[in-house]
């Protein structure tokens, strides 16, 4: 078959994984140069859903850009909300009431749990196990219902405002959140018994797709990817923002650097996020959820400002350059998965195709966030 081997010297072939492929979770394309089932070279090709959010930001007022943030990382939209409102509040010097900060943390941690649950289901689906997906979606549905009751939307949230949040929670939300925490805590052992301890899963993940700490540093990997490689880096602890310093939680770190380590980091993070939500609900102060004196038209002073938050996939940073007008002069969105995916080409060299897909799943890709 001449299409595969032009000559004896050239026995590799190019396999286009995507843009429509079940394992790429969206429109990512990876150009694989293969020798049989071994990967000689992998080159991710991006930009299939590039929407140029940064240019959109320059063409609308500071507040008008808010809904865009929820449309980048649609799985952890509230963290992206958080990053953007934080940087604008930092620039314009807006104080946020304490209750609003608590609500931000409660909702965005619930959102983080929902993101990890979806990743869990989709990752096992990548490995050929169908059923955990439905169980994870069952749990995730409870979070979506809770968040819908307070934010008004189920996926692309736009709940945070400069100086607070848009809506206060009620007793139903508190009761629902507590019930959900109990429910998921009861179900986590089931997930571990049925999935984590499955011998096939262990064989497929252990020692597959190793990423060294040095590689993380050179590529700027953050989030569960670097924590699975033994780097204790979490923006919530590293440069604490909001009310995270008052919360008692741990950052799960695993040394192995393989896909199993990244899997375990995320599973442990679900439990830590539940702890944070529980504490925040206990400590929730009374008070307003919106700052009193937020100007209608925001004009931050000249200069540039940076703020990073920890999303479910890593450190999301926003750099804004203000020229003192009512629109951003420049808005840079540093998305975590962009950096995490950039190491894929090096990490999967010489791997077999199924292992490379396990590695890709363990990076937890959200394509709209990479392409922005």
């Amino acid at each position, binding site marked *: 078959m001449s299409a595969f081997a032009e000559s004896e010297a050239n026995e590799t072939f190019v396999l286009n994984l995507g843009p429509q492929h079940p394992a790429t979770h969206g429109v990512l394309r990876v150009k694989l140069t293969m020798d049989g089932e071994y990967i000689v070279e992998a080159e991710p090709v991006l930009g299939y859903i590039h929407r140029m959010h940064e240019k959109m930001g320059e063409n609308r007022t500071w507040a008008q850009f808010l809904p865009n943030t929820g449309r980048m990382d649609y799985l952890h939209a509230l963290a992206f909300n958080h990053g953007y409102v934080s940087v604008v509040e930092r620039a314009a010097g807006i104080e946020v009431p304490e209750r609003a900060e608590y609500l931000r943390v409660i909702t965005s941690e619930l959102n983080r749990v929902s993101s990890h649950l979806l990743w869990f289901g989709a990752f096992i689906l990548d490995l*050929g196990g169908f059923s955990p997906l439905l169980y994870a979606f069952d749990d995730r549905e409870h979070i979506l219902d809770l968040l819908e009751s307070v934010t008004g939307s189920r996926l692309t949230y736009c709940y945070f405002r400069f100086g607070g949040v848009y809506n206060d929670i009620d007793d139903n939300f508190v009761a629902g959140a507590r019930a959900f925490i109990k429910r998921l805590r009861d179900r986590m052992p089931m997930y571990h018994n049925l999935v984590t301890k499955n011998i096939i899963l262990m*064989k497929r993940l252990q020692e597959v797709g190793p990423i060294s700490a040095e590689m993380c540093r050179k590529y700027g990997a953050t989030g569960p990817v670097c924590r699975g490689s033994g780097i204790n880096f979490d923006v919530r602890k590293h440069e604490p923002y909001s009310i995270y310093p008052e919360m008692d939680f741990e950052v799960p770190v695993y040394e192995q650097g393989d896909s199993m380590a990244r899997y375990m980091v995320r599973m442990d993070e679900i439990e830590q996020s539940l702890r944070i939500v529980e504490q925040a609900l206990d400590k929730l102060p009374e008070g307003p959820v919106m700052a009193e004196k937020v100007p209608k038209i925001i004009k931050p002073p000249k200069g540039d400002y940076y703020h990073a938050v920890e999303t479910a996939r890593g450190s999301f940073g926003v750099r804004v350059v203000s020229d003192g007008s009512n629109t951003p002069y420049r808005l840079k969105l540093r998305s975590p998965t962009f950096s995490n995916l950039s190491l894929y080409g090096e990490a999967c060299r010489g791997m077999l195709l199924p292992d490379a897909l396990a590695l890709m799943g363990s990076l937890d890709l959200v394509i709209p966030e990479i392409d922005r």
Partner: protein
Amino acid sequence: MYVDPEIIRLLAFLVGVIAFAALNAAYLVWLERKEAAHIQRRIGPKEVGPFGLFQPLVDGIKLMTKQLIVPAGVDPVLFKIAPILVMVPAIMSFVTIPFGETLVARNLDIGLLAIFAFASVNVLGLLLGAWGSRNKYAVISAARVVSQNVAYEIPMLVTVVTLVMITGTMNLHTIVLQQQGGFWHWNIFNLSASPLMPVAFLIFFVCMLAETNRAPFDMAEAESELVAGAFTEYSGMGFGVFFMGEYANIVIGASMATILFLGGWDCPLGLFPGVLWFLIKMYFLIFTVIWIRWTFPRTTFYGLLNLSWKILIPISFFNLILTSAMLKVF
């Protein structure tokens, strides 16, 4: 006009066998969907007919009305012949399977050999279909299918050879007759012949999963890796025939396990033998196959080959030697 009743009998059986194979394929899809749904805490098909029982018919009509697309660039002959190559041997195998004491189309003396000969044509069909598709995913899948089938045919056949040594015949009817009279007579518990018989059954079952490309060994399809593997370019009834062939192969695999190890139509307590018992055992095995699929993730390809070459083949050879030694001694 005189017509040999044997011919009428054969024709009746032929129609019956084809109908059985087709109905099984259709209703195993229904069973698979229902079972998967209940494992996943869903309901499954329920709209068409009671319990969604007419769903397979509707699906079949849909598949048959779809256009048969032959993509540009494929080898038209191989592409069209491949689904038939998977389906026909599967149906032919049914001819020699004894469902009941008298319910067998053709009782061959070498029935066992015939079935394994037909079963190995299945892989040829997949290989030709994948190769003819000229699709890279399909070709990778074809390479996987062939090495997987070669790897698993060895322990399976060695296990069968062990069994033939014990029974002394390749006639399936006779093999079942030897196991009559309660479950302690079944080959799986025939510990006096070889204490490893339950293990041999397990090996046979695992090999059957691998030979029929079922999860966790569904390397050929592996939808999260190879899109749809060998079937990537197929649509409509081409795809449908492939699937009927796959399900027919599962039925044959389960029937063989029933005949060789579980006493065929024998009642576990030795009373009232009949076709019903055969079907119960067979469908229980199929149920287990589906259960496994919806519970486990997929193994990797090298894990699959390692399992065969490093574990199953040594054990099955050991079992062969042990059995022959015991036959010689006792």
